[in-house]
């Protein structure tokens, strides 16, 4: 099947997008609850988002 790998990559990117979205949403909630911990939450959020992003790129480069 021609082009199936592109669909697979698309699925991975959708997954990564949902993951990063959830991290962002949770971080927002956490910041709303504890505004004084904003810096720490942001740093943790960025690290987690970067790790997921890596998987997304791995899928894109496997195509």
């Amino acid at each position, binding site marked *: 099947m021609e082009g199936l790998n592109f669909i697979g990559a698309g699925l991975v990117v959708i997954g990564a997008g949902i993951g990063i979205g959830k991290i962002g949403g949770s971080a927002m909630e956490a910041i709303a609850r504890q505004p004084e911990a904003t810096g*720490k939450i942001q*740093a943790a959020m*960025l*690290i987690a988002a970067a790790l997921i*992003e*890596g998987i997304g*790129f*791995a899928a*894109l*480069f496997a195509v």
Partner: protein
Amino acid sequence: MSHMQRKFSMKKLAFLVFFISGVVFGQHHEEKTSHTTTHKEQNSTLSLKEEFKKFKEHHIQDSHSFDFVSYKNDEGEKVHIGFPLPVILWDNGLKIFSSSKFHHGESVAEAGGNYYKLHHGKIYKTEANGLLNLDEHHHPTNVKPLDFSITKSIFFVIAVALLMFFIFSKIAKSYKTSALPTGLGRFLEPLILFIRDDIAIPNIGKKHYKKYMSYLLTIFFFIWIINLLGLTPLGVNVTNNIAITFVLAIMTYLFTTFTANKNYWKHIFWMPGVPIPMKILLAPIELLGTIIKPFALMIRLYANITAGHIVLMSILGMMVIAHNWLGSSLSFVLAFVLSLLELLVAALQTYIFTMLSSLYFGMAVEEHDEH
């Protein structure tokens, strides 16, 4: 005494890394040369779409000369505006000549009785007629001499290194006369303090952070400046060369490995508080983890910057290919917005790289008194 020794070994380590980097840059293969354009290159009537695709691939690749613009003039000749860079080859002796001899891959360069030809950014040894033997995948089978050339990427690595040395030694000197920063120092001081107070100290700890500050500051400013240069119309693309991110990641790996204390190794090979069969099972996984961490660093920076460049180039290509008012205006707006996003990505990836490096250093020097 041990402090002196450590300093000395760090110097040696840095030298070794730079030596490796030279070899890696030279031998780096961009295997992604497209299969669709290679066999059509003799065909002078390329469609606009294919020509743009070729241009895009050329932009992603490293090159032996520095071209600002290249276009076809009225007679159909290709005109390149830019300057050549030195080619340094090791082929039974050192051969140094200017890349202008290649005429952008159109002619054969002669040096010390040997003939070389440029083919898709790689130098091959040929006969005097300059013919390449292509295999069935259109890859040349000719011998490739060891290539230590100052390519565009290396030119910019050196330029940024000199620039950073100049700027930061000047700033450091200005602190000798007054505690207040002057000039560019006013802009850079908050960033340096941010790296110290928000990246190094929370992750590494107050006791050990000083040892790593010089490295963290260096990679932060190096990656940041070079990412920002990549967004200028100069066509610089250093961090989307995987060899360069590889060297940056390997530096983090080596610094982590060689400065790690015995607790770090204990937690890899014989972690406390785990049953013995589990210890045997986990040790190889943990050991693999130490390599996967810098590998992810390498891929992350490379992939982010490359993806950004490709998307930006594709959107710009819409203007050429669509060739109507809608495509052009849409492409302009999208490219502008995406450039702003890339500005953020350039800073964010720098931050992530520095942050994760300091996190790994923190793991290496962590002291587990609680067990």
